[in-house]
């Protein structure tokens, strides 16, 4: 078999659309109004008040590809559809009125026979002018398809009105009046030589003002003159078509057929059922009238049954059942008689035309009317007489007359009656009553049987309807429609079921199964729990554990357990049904394979990848054998395997698999097939997981658009796709674009799925994450808390989704400085995830990285480093070095190194991250900028100031552009640039930038944020250097208490503020205030720097303090010498760049302790290592020591 490896599905669609669609566009008739408008400059426009009847319900809106204009008509949705055409609602723009537009189906537009008949229908409707016939206004052509317009009748069909009667006796007179109108209309048509040939209640419209109209003259035949269709030719053509091709639709014989036999079997005369078109004339319509009358009187047409049976009955005129029903219907004998005459098998035996029938019905109704009138008159007369009798108190009225006027209730009369006459009359009445009772009983029995049969049929229909309706609430079937009413019905049905309203246990089980399944798909697991296990219990008990229905119920319960996250229970149930099906049906049966798929899915949910994959592969083998390689079920399994590969970061294999599946699906099922769309969506998600955002974004947009088009904008799958698109946009940093997508999806989900549905909660969580990234912490917390609380309630505390929500909430805690709460949550999460997923699962890695980040914030770098390092190694192995998650961890580790002054370790990691992110995400992506910021810091620490400045000056405007001017990251880096200016000696520029940064930070992130506190310290230090001690003191006075409170006493930044304030006080001569601070500084130095984790810079700093303490009693040169020596040893060991500074301090200490010779040697070495011009004091101090040494030698 050929296939089309080089043609895209769209191209093939174009070919198919040309071949089987509308290929010959023809210009429709233009709007007259448009023409007039062109001439006069304005269009006449008269609009009358709408009819009270309101709008005509449109059954189906126009499809995206359907033409909306046909000349002067605007085509609206479909009102109905038949075998050869569809009727749409339309609007005539010129005349400003609604019309019905009947379009020939495109597939018949080249069929001469059908075309001919279609046009004839329009011509018949156009020429027959009678109030009972819907007038045809216009005949036209659009896109090669003919159409005609006619009056839009607003109302109900007779079929509908008959169907809603409680019994055939209800309102019988009104229906007979309608029937008379039908007969009158047909009499007119017959007089014009037209027979209808498809008369039935569905083709009779009753308007809102009671007007009766006969519609659908599509099978009409002109008998005597003008435009007679070539019936033989048509019949020959139709005979070539098969039954399937020509049946308008399946059913119970009450729908029209086109083909060798035209019409609707249930109402059809035998000559028509036999296809003897030549024998058909007015009397064929008379038969159909009889059939309608039969339905009016008995509730059913003459023939009842499945289509094929009905055709058989019609062709043989098997009317016994109809006659029996007519005899038992209790209608007036003349109507029963008329019906039977109309239904005579031989046309010659029927009334010769509709006019005769019309007259008979009219006479009957008139007689009945007359009888009623007479009775009313008699009643009135009786009243008058009674009044007169009462007045005169006479007894001169006969018994007969009294009975006739119905005054038997008068006790006054009975007392006056003749006793003998009374006895005789009573005996007669008793005899009549007895006879009537017997007849009534018989009739009642017949009626009760008929009622019981109807009730049974109705019950079956109602059950089917209810089942379908309940299923219709499921998102997949509801397809985005408002299901509020259906949901209420579902809840009511559930409540009634709970009350025991259904007696039959198996029916109850079925309803429990349906209702529970619907609740499950709505995410209402507690409600589902009340039904699905009940269905299983009943079926197990009544049908036994191995019945197919019991197994289906077991599947239902197991699916619920999966939804609830109770995987072990689900697995047990699935395995049990699988074992039973394997034993009963064999391994290759489709139900068995489906069971296997369930088991594979539940393995996968439990992360038992090897088992899941193995089983999936076995399923694939079986499907390939039994269904073929490219069967849709086989492709579903292949897709599952691909998803499995994706989940386990086997991206290349997953990508290859998806691409192959998509190619096959597009070729076989077209690009718009739901599974093709799903697979393309999966591919887009794969690209996103791989960090290939540039490919993921357009694909995800394309898929989303396709879903909107194919499934509608509110379909759950469309919304899921919309969220996937939003996710990519978030990954790309386009949060402002993503947010409306998520908000809109949430609005629809809350409305259509309810607030507890998993899809709704997914949107809530995503919004929380977006708000978090936008620094809208309160909103983020509210969203995440809502997701967490709801999931905890619906899914249980240990469900994977609940845990994910909890993790998100912990991130909010962390970001808002609630470290203790955050740490507690992370540790709990880690435990649960380790237990559930094993130690290398991405979720667990994510939690551990969050915990590491928290350690960092708490000043616990070693713990953080250990976690980062371990995670990075695992990620590199699982996802590869360029994966976004790996890069993130790498970057975090680099920043940690940087904070610890391990710049040599940090630099290569940062550079690698920046390069890769630039390549993958683009230079302006937030994460790329994040790396750039770290790189700038690295260069700053390395004292490669020019490079650092260039990087910062590139970074800050980019951040302002991407994240906003007040974003913490923008301001933080603005502060870093200010610090760089400070380092470069550009003090005023530094001050200006620091001040601007501080103001913005105080406004946007508050005084307690660590970035704001950092800026206070930096600005204070700048003022110290500028000699503006008062301003320096103010900076430290504000920030020190906050740091003590927020960061803690032990935090290094608290120490820096302490030192800064102490120096400012000293410089201002506020010694009393400086003394306790200096003591505190020294105490911290002693405690902090005695351990193995000593910081060389801090040791050096304290050595300097011990040498230069402003208070004599605090000076300690010996201790300073010890600290300085350790600082130099540490810095030398790690080949640090600050060794020259530490040597400078060491030389001072040596000099202070009297070892000037050593001091000279040390200072010389400091001078050698010092960057040129860094500190003139070093040279000065060397000269001082040399002079001292010389003095000593002179001494």
């Amino acid at each position, binding site marked *: *078999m*050929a296939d089309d490896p*080089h*043609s895209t599905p769209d*191209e*093939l669609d174009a070919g198919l659309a040309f071949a089987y669609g509308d*290929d010959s566009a023809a210009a429709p008739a233009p709007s007259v109004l448009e023409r007039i408008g062109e001439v006069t400059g304005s269009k006449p426009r008269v609009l009358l008040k709408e009819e009270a009847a309101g709008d005509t319900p449109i059954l189906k809106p126009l499809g995206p590809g359907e033409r909306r204009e046909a000349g002067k008509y605007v085509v609206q949705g479909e009102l109905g559809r038949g075998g050869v055409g569809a009727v749409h609602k339309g609007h005539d723009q010129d005349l400003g009125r609604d019309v019905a537009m009947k379009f020939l189906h495109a*597939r018949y537009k080249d069929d001469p026979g059908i075309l001919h008949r279609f046009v004839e229908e329009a011509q018949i409707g156009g020429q027959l002018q009678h109030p009972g016939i819907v007038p045809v206004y216009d005949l036209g052509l659009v896109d090669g398809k003919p159409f005609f317009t006619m009056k839009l009748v607003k109302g109900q069909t007779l079929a509908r009105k008959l169907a809603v009667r409680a019994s055939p006796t209800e309102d019988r007179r009104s229906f007979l009046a309608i029937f008379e109108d039908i007969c009158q209309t047909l009499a007119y048509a017959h007089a014009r030589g037209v027979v209808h040939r498809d008369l039935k209640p569905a083709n009779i419209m009753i308007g809102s003002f009671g007007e009766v109209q006969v519609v659908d003259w599509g099978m009409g035949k002109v008998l005597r003159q003008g435009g007679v269709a070539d019936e033989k030719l048509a019949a020959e053509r139709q005979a070539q078509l098969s039954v399937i091709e020509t049946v308008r639709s399946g059913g119970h014989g009450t729908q029209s057929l086109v083909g060798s036999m035209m019409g609707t079997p249930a109402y059809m005369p035998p000559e028509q059922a036999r296809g003897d078109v030549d024998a058909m004339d007015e009397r064929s319509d008379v038969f159909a009238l009889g059939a309608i009358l039969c339905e009016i009187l008995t509730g059913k047409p003459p023939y009842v049954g499945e289509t094929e049976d009905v055709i058989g009955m019609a062709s043989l005129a098997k009317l016994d059942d109809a006659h029996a029903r007519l005899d038992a219907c209790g209608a007036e004998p003349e109507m029963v008689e008329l019906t039977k005459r109309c239904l005579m098998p031989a046309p010659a035996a029927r009334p010769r035309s509709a006019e005769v029938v019309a007259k008979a019905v009219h006479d009957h109704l008139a007689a009945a009317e007359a009888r009623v009138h007479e009775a009313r008159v008699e009643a009135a007369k009786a009243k008058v007489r009674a009044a007169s009798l009462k007045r005169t108190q006479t007894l001169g009225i006969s018994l007969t007359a009294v009975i006739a006027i119905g005054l038997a209730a008068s006790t006054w009369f009975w007392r006056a009656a003749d006793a003998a006459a009374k006895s005789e009359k009573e005996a007669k009445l008793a005899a009549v009553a007895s006879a009537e009772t017997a007849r009534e009983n018989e009739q009642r029995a017949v009626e009760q049987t008929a009622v019981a049969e109807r009730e049974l049929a109705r019950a079956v229909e109602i059950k089917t309807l209810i089942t379908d309706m309940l299923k219709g609430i499921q998102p997949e079937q509801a397809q985005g429609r408002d299901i509020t009413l259906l949901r209420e019905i579902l809840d009511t049905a559930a409540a009634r079921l709970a009350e025991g309203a259904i007696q039959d246990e198996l029916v109850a089980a079925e309803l429990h199964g349906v209702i529970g399944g619907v609740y499950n798909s709505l995410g209402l697991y507690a409600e589902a729990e009340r039904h699905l296990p009940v269905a299983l219990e009943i079926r197990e008990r009544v049908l036994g554990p191995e019945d197919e229905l019991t197994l289906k119920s077991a599947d239902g319960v197991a699916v619920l357990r999966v939804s609830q996250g109770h995987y072990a229970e689900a697995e047990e149930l699935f395995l049990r049904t699988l074992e039973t099906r394997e034993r009963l049906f064999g391994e290759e049966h489709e139900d068995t394979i489906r069971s296997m798929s369930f088991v594979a899915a539940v393995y996968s949910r439990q992360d038992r990848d090897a088992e899941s994959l193995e089983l999936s592969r076995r399923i694939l083998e079986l499907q390939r054998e039994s269904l073929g390689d490219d069967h*849709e079920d086989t492709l579903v399994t292949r897709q599952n395997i691909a998803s499995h590969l994706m989940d386990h970061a086997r991206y290349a294999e997953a990508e290859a698999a998806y691409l192959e599946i998509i190619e096959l699906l597009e070729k076989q099922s077209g690009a718009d*097939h739901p599974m093709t769309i799903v697979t393309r969506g999966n591919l887009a998600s794969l690209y996103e997981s791989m960090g290939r955002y540039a490919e993921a974004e357009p694909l995800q947009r394309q898929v989303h658009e396709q879903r909107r088009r194919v499934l509608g904008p509110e379909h759950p799958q469309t919304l899921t796709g919309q969220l996937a698109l939003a996710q990519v946009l978030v990954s790309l940093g386009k949060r402002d674009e993503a947010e409306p997508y998520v908000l809109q999806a949430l609005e629809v989900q809350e409305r259509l799925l309810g607030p507890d549905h998993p899809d709704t909660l997914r949107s809530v969580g995503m919004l929380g994450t977006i708000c978090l990234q936008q620094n809208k912490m309160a909103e983020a917390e509210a969203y995440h808390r809502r997701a967490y609380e709801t999931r905890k309630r619906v899914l249980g505390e240990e469900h994977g989704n609940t845990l994910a929500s909890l993790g998100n909430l912990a991130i909010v805690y962390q970001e808002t400085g609630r470290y203790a709460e955050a740490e507690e949550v992370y540790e709990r999460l880690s435990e649960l995830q380790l237990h559930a997923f094993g130690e290398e699962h991405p979720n667990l890695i994510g939690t551990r990285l969050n915990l590491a980040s928290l350690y960092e914030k708490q000043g616990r770098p070693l713990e953080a480093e250990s976690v980062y390092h371990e995670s990075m190694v695992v990620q590199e192995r699982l996802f590869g070095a360029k994966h976004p998650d790996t890069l993130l961890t790498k970057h975090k580790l680099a920043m940690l190194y940087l904070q610890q002054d391990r710049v040599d370790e940090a630099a290569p990691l940062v550079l690698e991250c920046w390069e890769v992110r630039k390549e993958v995400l683009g230079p302006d992506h937030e994460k790329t900028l994040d790396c750039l910021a770290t790189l700038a810091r690295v260069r700053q620490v390395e004292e490669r100031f020019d490079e650092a400045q260039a990087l910062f000056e590139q970074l800050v405007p980019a951040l302002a552009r991407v994240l906003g001017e007040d974003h913490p990251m923008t301001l933080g880096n603005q502060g870093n640039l200010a610090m760089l200016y400070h380092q470069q000696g550009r003090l005023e520029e530094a001050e200006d930038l620091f001040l601007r940064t501080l103001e913005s930070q105080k406004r946007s992130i508050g005084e307690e944020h660590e970035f704001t506190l950092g800026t206070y310290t930096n600005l204070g230090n700048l003022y110290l250097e500028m000699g503006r001690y008062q301003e320096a003191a103010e900076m430290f006075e504000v920030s020190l208490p906050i740091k003590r409170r927020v960061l803690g006493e032990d935090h290094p930044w608290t120490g820096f503020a302490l030192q800064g304030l102490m120096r400012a006080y000293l410089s201002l001569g506020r010694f009393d205030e400086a003394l306790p601070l200096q003591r505190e500084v020294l105490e911290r130095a002693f405690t902090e720097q005695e351990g193995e984790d000593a910081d060389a810079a801090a040791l050096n700093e304290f050595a300097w303090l011990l040498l230069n303490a402003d208070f004599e009693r605090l000076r300690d040169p010996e201790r300073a010498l010890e600290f300085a020596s350790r600082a130099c040893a540490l810095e030398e060991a790690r080949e640090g760049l600050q060794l020259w500074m530490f040597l400078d301090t060491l030389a001072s200490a040596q000099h202070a302790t009297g070892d000037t010779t050593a001091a000279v040697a040390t200072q010389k070495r400091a001078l050698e290592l010092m960057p040129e011009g860094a500190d003139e004091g070093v040279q000065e101090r060397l000269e001082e020591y040399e002079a001292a040494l010389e003095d000593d030698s002179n001494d």
Partner: protein
Amino acid sequence: MSRSPSDTCWTVLRAAAHGDAAARSTFSRTYAVAIRSFLAARWRGRLLEGEVDDAAQEVFVECLKPSGVLERADEGRGDFRGLLFGVARNVARRFEDRAVARGRLLPEDSAWLGQVAADEPGQATLFDRGWAQALLRQTKRLHRERALADGLAGERRIELLERRFGDNEAIREIAARWGVPAQDVHNAYRKARTEFYGCLREVVAFHAPPGADLDAECRRLLACLR
């Protein structure tokens, strides 16, 4: 015309060129649609529009006359479509020249003629589209014939395509109308597409030069419809 599997348009052309009546009839039927639609599109809205039939007839005469185009046609020279386009274009120009000479053009038509003459690529596209439409019609006929031979299921597949592409019904609607699972309709739809493409390939193979990449030819043909 009944074709043997080894037939190509060149075997028909040669037979037609040598006076085989059946082949000539086949030739005319096969290419009439493409030629007519090209001429009708070229002359739409002009006085010449009434001469489409005559001009189409003249194209056939040009092809079938002794020492005409068909006799000179050479398989090795490539695609017959190009040859036919050349003939149709020449005949069209001849009609246009004649109309000018006889003063049968409206004044504004002179400017239009200039544009048509200058728009060689556009005219080729026009012809290609007509050509593609003609081949698609052949494909549809072949496809219907094959599918109907497959009995009820085949008839259903044709109805399915008509409903899907003609009446714009969604697969799920068709499934509901037929009262069968949507999956079955999807499967039938997939099969119908594959069959249709197979027929298209066959029709294209008939017209394509020997050794041509048929899938690429199909793609090119389908693209012409846009």
